[in-house]
């Protein structure tokens, strides 16, 4: 509010007629306050918790115990690496799968556009846990997909590259990555759709008119113009995928544990709050670092 008053004196208009300057701040206040108290402040308490020592029964004291970060990294770096690798692969796959569908909805679906869009969003309403459980059925050894994959030697290939351990599909890295791709695909498709919908189809025609092959048209026109959607979509897929542990627990095995799972169990089962908080904080810092580098490289600072 004080800021508004400072602003108004800077203009040439009489101060009394500039009183509406407080309006945006009044509109922002409740929501921003909510985010400051329940999003920003918890980050502070999280960091503070990680530097405390003690236990649940006797309470904690702040000891600035920074060594916990080293211990946490030393002990759990494989889970961190695994999380980012899985999330990275899943994001790439989601982009590969999501782009054609988003393009189809935006440019080719015509009067079926809304129907297809609804079909993309509607699965959200069936709990994602149930849908992930459904994949246990689809990928189970008794189902035809595994049999086909075995007959076509796909299972052999997956085993050779280390994504599965035997000739079944379930309870493997393959199943976890597939599940992550599946679960976060809508978060890829929606931003892609938004930016592809704005794409003027005449630009594609113009590129064709100027001797660009379909592939060149895509490379030189469609892709660059959809970049904001690509950046937003990859972020909205990668970030939740990196912190997810549902897929790893339901579709994976003991060798596919992701960092989210560690944080969850350290907090809620082991009750080692400082270690859990340290792990959580490391994850946050790594994600923020990656996102800011990525956003800067992609050149789209204004994402909203």
């Amino acid at each position, binding site marked *: 509010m004080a800021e508004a008053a400072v602003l108004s004196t800077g203009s040439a208009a009489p101060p009394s007629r500039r009183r509406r300057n407080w309006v945006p701040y009044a509109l922002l206040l409740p929501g921003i306050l909510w985010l400051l108290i329940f999003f920003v402040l918890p980050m502070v308490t999280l960091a503070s918790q990680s530097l405390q020592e003690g236990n649940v029964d006797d309470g904690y004291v702040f000891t600035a115990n920074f060594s916990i970060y080293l211990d946490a990294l030393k002990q759990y770096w494989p889970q961190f690496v695994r999380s980012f690798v899985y999330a990275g692969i899943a994001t790439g796959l989601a982009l590969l799968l999501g782009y054609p569908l988003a393009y189809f909805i935006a440019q080719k679906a015509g009067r079926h556009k809304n129907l297809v869009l609804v079909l993309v969003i*509607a699965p959200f309403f069936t709990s994602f846990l149930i849908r992930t459980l459904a994949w246990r*059925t689809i990928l189970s050894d008794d189902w035809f997909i595994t049999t086909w994959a075995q007959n076509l030697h796909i299972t052999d290939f997956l085993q050779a590259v280390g994504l599965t351990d035997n000739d079944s599909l379930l309870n493997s890295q393959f199943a976890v990555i597939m599940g992550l791709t599946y679960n976060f695909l809508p978060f890829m498709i929606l931003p892609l759709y938004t930016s592809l919908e704005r794409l003027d189809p005449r630009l594609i025609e113009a590129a064709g008119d100027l001797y660009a092959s379909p592939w060149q048209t895509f490379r030189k026109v469609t892709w660059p113009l959809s970049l904001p959607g690509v950046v937003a979509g990859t972020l909205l897929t990668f970030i939740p995928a990196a912190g997810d542990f549902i897929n790893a627990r339901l579709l994976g095995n003991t060798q596919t544990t992701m960092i989210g799972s560690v944080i969850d169990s350290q907090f809620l089962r082991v009750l080692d709050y400082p270690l859990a908080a340290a792990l959580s904080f490391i994850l946050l810092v790594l994600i923020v670092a990656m996102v800011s580098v990525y956003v800067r490289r992609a050149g789209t600072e204004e994402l909203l």
Partner: protein
Amino acid sequence: MSWIKRHLITFAAIAVLIYMLVPNVIVAAFSFNDPKGKYNYNFNEFSTAAWTNPCGAQGICESLGLSLQIGVIASLAATALGTMIAFALGRYRFRGRSATNLLIFMPMATPEVVMGSSLLTLFLMLGVPSGRTAILIAHIMFCVSFVVVAVKARVATLDPKLEEAAADLGANPTQTFMRVTLPLAAPGIAAGALLAFSLSFDDYIITNFNASPSSITFPMYVWGASARGVPVQVYVIGTVMFLLALIVVMTGQLISSRRNRQVA
């Protein structure tokens, strides 16, 4: 061959759509299963038992009720807060704009496990008990940003001249907002509210950090059941929610398209 080549994108899109919908088909099919053991993973025998008795599994309807309740309250609150922020960002120039944008973006760029656990540390320090209130606070917090994005997209397309026209025709600021601005922004607000509801209804990770044994939401119920065998009723509820979402959105589409046709 050239026909296939020309429709390559369509085929790819349909294939991806099938990939996205197969689990829902499985869920629907298995809601008619009478499983042999405690796990509902293999189709044994056709049965409508779960459909005729959807609350048959212990605690399932209580958890569904709690999830619906939290979903409605959280999405209403998040829609109110988010819509106000979206209007401020879309309609006014003010100092602190980019900081606000960053603050709105951050919750979307933070893994759920971090948001859930950090909120837990806050509640631990303040002595806020786990449970329904804690869950509500968390849900409103992570839904606000998504509402802002949805509403802001709509507000950005509104012509400010329309509000000037309303004022020019004698509408005071309140009338202008109620009769012009709000009706025009309504589709964006509705989309934001729907998105917020679906995010809240479906959330497990953050909820899990702030729930108490007496506040078991539906996703938590499913998670708990997944270890000891998921009752068929879960599949029934999943199917009903999916169909309900389809019907709600399709009716909305139908109404708006008929309204347009009526006047034609």
